[in-house]
């Protein structure tokens, strides 16, 4: 509880974040928040931007190899209630998507970065297919696009010292996988949904 408060406030102060909801509202219904990824702080940022009741039901997806490196990171991952995914050992019989769905059950929401890794600059990379399979297996989940602006300047890739600039987070209206929509089309549409929040 103490670490959580400390973390949310530290994240807010360092990132000077202003949070906006465009055509959607914070809600405890089951959702997948998917965002562009430019900084180590992204996970903490999106997670702390949610109101406490929503936050407690929301689990960020994070890379196992990074968040299990060192006791501090391990502790933090526990505080976020992060779901650690092994990037190296993705096999057919234990696909990450199945694991995610099993873990969230009928109550939790997810925070996901569908680019897979952090992109170097302001660009948003191609989305990996996880989001598509989530939508396919659980069509009832609301998929909420999130655009993170300026975090790549606050704590860029490969840096550990932050520069306290101002950033913004924009939550957009939910999208769903259309019936029979091809994977490539859907992933492109999801990426556009994130990018369109940039101009807002």
């Amino acid at each position, binding site marked *: 509880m103490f670490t959580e408060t400390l973390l949310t406030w530290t994240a807010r102060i360092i990132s000077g974040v202003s949070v*906006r909801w465009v055509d959607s509202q914070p809600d405890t219904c089951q959702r997948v928040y998917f965002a562009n990824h430019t900084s180590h702080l992204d996970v903490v940022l999106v997670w702390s931007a949610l109101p406490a009741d929503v936050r407690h039901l929301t689990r960020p997806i994070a890379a196992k190899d990074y968040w299990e490196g060192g006791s501090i990171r391990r502790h933090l991952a526990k505080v976020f209630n992060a779901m650690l995914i092994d990037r190296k050992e993705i096999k057919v019989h234990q696909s990450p998507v199945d694991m995610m769905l099993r873990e969230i059950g009928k109550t939790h929401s997810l925070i996901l970065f569908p680019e897979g890794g952090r992109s170097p600059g302001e660009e948003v990379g191609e989305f990996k297919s996880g989001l598509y399979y989530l939508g396919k297996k659980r069509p009832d989940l609301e998929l909420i696009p999130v655009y993170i*602006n300026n975090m790549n300047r606050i704590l860029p890739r490969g840096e550990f010292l932050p*520069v306290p600039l*101002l950033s*913004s987070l924009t939550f957009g209206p939910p999208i769903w996988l259309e019936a029979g929509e091809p994977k490539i089309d859907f992933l492109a549409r999801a990426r556009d949904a994130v990018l369109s929040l940039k101009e*807002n």
Partner: protein
Amino acid sequence: MRDWALLGTVLALLSLATLGGQWLKRQTSMGLDGKAVDAFNSRIQAWWFFSIVLGISFFHPILTVVLFGMLAFWALREYITLTPTTMGDHRALFWVFFLFTPAQFVLVGFNMYSLYSVLIPVYAFLFIAARAAISGDYHRFLERIAKIQFGLFVCVYCLSFVPALLFLECQSTEGDESASARLLFFFITMVLFSELAQFLCSRLFGKHLITETIDESRTWEGVVGGAAATALLGSLLFWATPFKYLWQVATMSILISMMSSAGALTMAAIRKDRGEVRSGTLIEGHGGVLSRIDAICFAAPVFYHLTLVFFGRAAG
């Protein structure tokens, strides 16, 4: 006694301005530009804020230094957010935010004039250039370091001279403990009043725009009228200042007013330039802290320095 009189005068002026601003807001028939009235009212709000902060300085100078330090930090944050920087600037920026900005205000708090007057223009400026060079990114090198240097200079160095006034001792007021708090209060009042006076004069008599590309409402008539009105108010507040003669107060007031206009215009140019490139949600509204302190930033170091040279304790 003089402290309370000054405080009372400022509060009376502020209340008058607030009432005026609210009255203007209701006058829909006069064909006034709603945006201009809002700008007027947000200036009055800033003035209230500063007056309350400065009220504190009569009791606790260090608290005032800390508050201005936080203000500078936030202003620099807005400035760098607006200004494009590259990965090569990252480490230099880290030290700018976490070393030079706090150090400047700590030195001001200890009244170490000989150090804080050169910390940024000598040490920080050289450091920024060298650190950016070490990063190996030489693209647009001069532009990049100039942007960071200017931001640090305006938001931190210039602003730090406002709380520095609290430690400035003058010949004529030796032994009077609250004289420097009055000096600071006088300075802020002059800057904010000159902004309002200039705005009103521009509305009433303005014909010749200074430059329409940057500011569509700032006129030469406004600048001259604002300076005249500020000189008048300064003369009326003569008894609160360390200046000996009426003409000295009037000259200083005109100077403050001129520097305020120059500051507001310069920062408007920067905002205009950046606003066209990055119209975003990063800084909500019109620039927040940065646009509220632009006039103060330009006037503070000049006012401090001239007061020190001509009226300071060491002056002959």
